[in-house]
């Protein structure tokens, strides 16, 4: 069956016509989505991730919601909790002065099929807006998926006005067999700084395709880290546009995959103004029969002279049936630039293992030490003291060698 | 003969040279000394034609020609040589090949016949030996992987082979130990003669222990504030540059 046919079957149960908001826009977004359906390998942007194949089983899934009490990180900061795409007021902080829960957002369609799908079926999301010059501190944004056969499509918006600061810790968790397609629109105004740490711990039966669309203005900074450990298939896709001179993005991610998990980190960093810098490091640890994917593209427009772009992709394969596919791309139209990327793929370094064994450590322990070291290195970009322990805990509880 | 008259120059909005008058007759070696930020390197870059400096006034002539109107390669052909303070690395470009290409480009521009490889290599090997440089210096890529001292010696090697009429030595002594300093000075002294002049740009007096200048000029805040004989260098060494900048 084609991507479109499966999509039809799965989405038939959603009565888009009954959803609130601009119906015409929803229908046109839906049409945009159906022009491709679930993307598969025929789409270059999905060369290594066949979403259609994973969604095949979902088409026949019986619809059921289960209300599980989600376990939330125990940190004492303001929080917003969305359950199946709807704000749960009982779990959320009362009043955040810079927050509106977002009603139905304007239904912009998109050439990205999953973003178009989100636009067609979303029920809104968090709308964080920090006014000029404000430091809004740190907030926790939780999304919980709970149930079977659901399509959950929150649409968050984070807007930082000139010179403002915000740190968002996003935790995504769930139970059941659902599809979660969050879209986050980000605008960082001149001189602003957004730090955005994302932990994806979806249910192992779920499919997670998150899209972050960020525009960074002059001298502004967007610092983001994603740790992906959950889902049957997970993709985190970033589109970051450096739109003002001197803008800076630090886009880091790590994924830990085992069993038959499929994890995909896709980044497109577009330098569209002069003198911007981008730094990306993406690490994958792959065990079992899991498959990791990294696709990263640095685009430099003709006007973006003095661009400084760097991208590093490292993968550690821990088993004979693990696989990594990596496609780091440079697309450059300006001459006065410094851009580079690197990729290394391999197993643990036998020399390091030997070194540890020569000091009396067993081989098993030596491997464990080195894997933890690789993972902890991955956490280095998390400078926030509230966020750090949440991510460390996630890594501690990850078990390589687990069958899934 | 180099004649600098009322030279003023700026980088962006900032004036670096505020009116320099300086004449270096053939056969003479002049030293330009001064504190950091006085404009010493700017002067050498402007004389050799580097981009990024705006000449806002004055004139420079070399053997009667308007130097400032010439492209960098034309200045080299006319006989100007700049020994860089920070020599540039050229990955993949062999040192011998580079120098020979330069020597022949300059010879062509002067209407002289080109040197064949054998003659060039013979001369180059002799020069390498005279500068106490390792034998593989000619085979390595230009300045790639060279130590600081090797880079400076490589500049003097190029000077020896290009046979300029006027050498601009920009802080050639920085980063050299005493032995290397002696060798580099030896290279310059060997070139001395009625047709060779040099502008030795330096912060310290120690290079001048080995290359005795005919004249010493003190550059401060973009102007030459004092000129004198070799004894001026000694005086500066003893008393420092204090008080000169305000002049």
């Amino acid at each position, binding site marked *: 069956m084609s991507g479109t046919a499966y999509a039809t079957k799965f989405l038939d149960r959603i009565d888009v016509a009954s959803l609130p908001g601009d119906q015409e826009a929803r229908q046109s977004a839906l049409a945009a989505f159906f022009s491709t359906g679930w993307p598969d390998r025929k789409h270059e942007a999905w060369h290594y991730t066949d979403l259609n194949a994973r969604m095949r089983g979902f088409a026949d899934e019986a619809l059921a919601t289960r209300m599980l009490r989600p376990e939330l990180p125990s940190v004492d900061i303001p929080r917003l909790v969305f359950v199946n795409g709807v704000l749960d007021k009982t779990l959320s902080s009362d009043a955040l002065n810079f927050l509106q829960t977002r009603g139905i957002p304007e239904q912009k369609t998109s050439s990205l099929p999953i973003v178009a799908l989100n636009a067609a079926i979303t029920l809104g999301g968090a709308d964080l807006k920090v006014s000029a010059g404000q430091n809004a501190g740190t907030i926790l944004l939780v999304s919980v998926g709970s149930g079977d056969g659901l399509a959950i499509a929150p649409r968050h918006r984070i807007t930082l006005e000139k010179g403002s600061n915000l740190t968002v810790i996003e935790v995504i968790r769930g139970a059941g067999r659902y599809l979660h397609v969050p879209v986050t629109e980000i605008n960082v105004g001149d001189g602003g700084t957004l730090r955005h740490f994302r932990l994806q711990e979806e249910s192992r039966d779920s499919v997670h395709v998150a899209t972050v669309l960020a525009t960074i203005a002059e001298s502004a900074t967007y610092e983001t880290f994603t740790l992906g450990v959950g889902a049957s298939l997970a993709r985190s896709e970033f589109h970051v546009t450096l739109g003002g001179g001197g803008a800076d993005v630090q886009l880091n991610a790590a994924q830990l995959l085992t069993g038959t998990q499929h994890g995909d980190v896709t980044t497109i960093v577009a330098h569209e103004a002069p003198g911007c810098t981008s730094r990306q490091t993406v690490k994958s640890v792959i065990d079992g029969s899991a498959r990791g994917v990294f696709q990263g593209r640095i685009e430099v427009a003709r006007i973006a002279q003095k661009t400084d772009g760097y991208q590093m992709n490292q993968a550690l394969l821990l088993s004979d049936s693990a696989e990594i596919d990596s496609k780091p791309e440079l697309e450059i139209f300006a001459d006065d630039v410094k851009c580079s990327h690197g990729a290394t793929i391999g197993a643990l370094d036998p020399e390091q293992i030997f070194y540890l064994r020569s000091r009396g450590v067993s081989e098993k322990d030596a491997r464990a030490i080195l894997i933890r070291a690789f993972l902890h290195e991955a956490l280095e970009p998390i400078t926030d003291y509230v966020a750090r322990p949440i991510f460390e805990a996630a890594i501690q509880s990850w078990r390589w060698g687990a069958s899934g | 003969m180099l004649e600098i008259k009322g030279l003023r120059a700026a980088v962006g909005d900032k004036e670096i040279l505020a009116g320099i008058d300086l004449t270096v007759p053939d056969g003479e070696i002049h030293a330009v000394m001064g504190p950091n930020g006085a404009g010493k390197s700017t002067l050498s870059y402007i004389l050799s034609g580097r981009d990024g400096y705006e000449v806002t006034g004055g004139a420079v002539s070399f053997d009667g020609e308007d130097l400032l109107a010439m492209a960098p*390669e034309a200045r080299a052909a006319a006989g100007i*040589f700049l020994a860089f303070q920070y020599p540039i690395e050229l990955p993949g470009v062999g040192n011998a090949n580079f120098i020979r290409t330069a020597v022949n480009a300059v010879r062509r521009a002067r209407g002289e016949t080109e040197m064949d490889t054998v003659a060039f290599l013979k001369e180059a090997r002799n020069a390498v030996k005279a500068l106490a440089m390792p034998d593989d210096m000619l085979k390595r890529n230009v300045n790639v992987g060279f130590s600081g001292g090797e880079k400076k010696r490589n500049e003097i090697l190029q000077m020896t082979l290009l046979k300029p009429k006027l050498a601009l030595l920009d802080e050639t002594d920085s980063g050299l130990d005493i032995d290397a300093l002696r060798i580099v000075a030896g290279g310059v002294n060997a070139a001395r003669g009625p047709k060779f002049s040099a502008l030795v740009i330096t912060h310290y007096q120690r290079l001048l222990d080995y290359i005795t200048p005919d004249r010493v000029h003190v550059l401060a805040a973009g102007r030459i504030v004092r000129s004198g004989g070799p004894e001026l260098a000694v005086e500066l060494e003893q008393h420092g540059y204090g008080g000169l900048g305000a002049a």
Partner: protein
Amino acid sequence: MVAVTETLQTINQLAGTGYKFGFETDIEMDVAPKGLNEKIIRLISEKKREPDWLLEWRLKSYRAWLSMEEPAWARIVHPKIEYQELHYYAAPKGPAPKSLADVDPELLNMYDKLGIPLNERAALAGVAIDAVFDSVSVATTFRESLAKVGVIFCSMSEAVREHPELVRKFLGSVVPAGDNYYAALNSAVFSDGSFVFVPRGVRCPMELSTYFRINARNTGQFERTLIIAEEGASVSYLEGCTAPMRDENQLHAAVVELVALDEASIKYSTVQNWYPGDAQGNGGIYNFVTKRGACRGRKSKISWTQVETGSAITWKYPSCILQGEGAVGEFYSVAVTNHFQQADTGTKMIHLAPNTTSTILSKGISAGRSSNTYRGLVRVMPRAANARNFTQCDSLLIGNHCGAHTVPYIESRNQSSKVEHEATTSKISDDQLFYCRSRGLSEEDSVGLIVNGFCRDVLKELPMEFAVEAQKLLAVSLEGSVG
């Protein structure tokens, strides 16, 4: 290599800018009618007095081609190619030359002008040359001395007649007829090319070289080259290409297949200098080439070196299938684009067996309004334990109207393998340029010197005489890109 030295002189003589090989040769040609159909294919096969099995293979390829579409994934744009408007066969008139004495003097003249002496006495340096004019091999030198050691070096047509068992065994065994759109087209209509067979244990005593020349108008050129190195054999093969300057685009779709058995080694070097079109982007060759080598034997080695300076469009991915344990694949490439040229080139290294290693070194230089893309695949299959790949891709941009792109695909399915990839994009630094100029080099010479330095690690893989020619070509290709 005398041929190359003379080519060099030709370059030097024809000072000024632009393409140096743009003359046309006036020779009576036997040209098939325009268009492509089964009748034309039968005509080609008949002209060449081919056996039935080969005609059948051609027809099968043609039918496969009909069902295929032009690939669209490469970063190139061009007007639709009208396949029915081309001639698929053009050859100098008259019976096939039996020896050099029979070759049309006008043709010998042309090769002389190009600096390719087909007269054996003239070729002092001892490089055996096969000259392919439009679609037909016109002369192969040094055949007797090669035959003494058992090396077969002849045109493909001749190989079909004289060594049908070898051709039948290996033709299409590395690049199957239906491999891709252009390979299928080539399989249907190929007219000639070179054939090399080096028997067990023989190190080929001289460099083998093919010189390709497109001359006829509106003629597609579809050579087919097949090189087989038996156990322990080794051979180094060079390929050079030029064409006249014309306003219209010409299609070139070649296929090269290499087979290396146990401990055999094949080194394949190309200096591709097809007409690139003029400074406004008119004319030039469309170069859609499939080159692939199979390292079938253990410890076999295939090494591709290419210097791509010509063609309006280059679509080319010389690849290695590393099937034998411990096999080695190498790809060394310099691709220069200027004016409106477009190059999408790279390699595929497919690791199938344990302990296989591959090295990729790619240097792309874009100038003018050109587009230069490296596209490469490194794939390590589960059986390829301890496989190693190292890839380095560097791009240099000259001027602010060109594009440089790097699109590597890296896939590993074996945990004991190690894959490393590095890529950089930069420009010639102002400091380097000033340093050279302050030593008396003109701006253009300085750029040439720095670019040659940038490409050095690739150029040094070329046979020495070729390297000198390649260096000059780089400088010529970049003329007019500075200032």
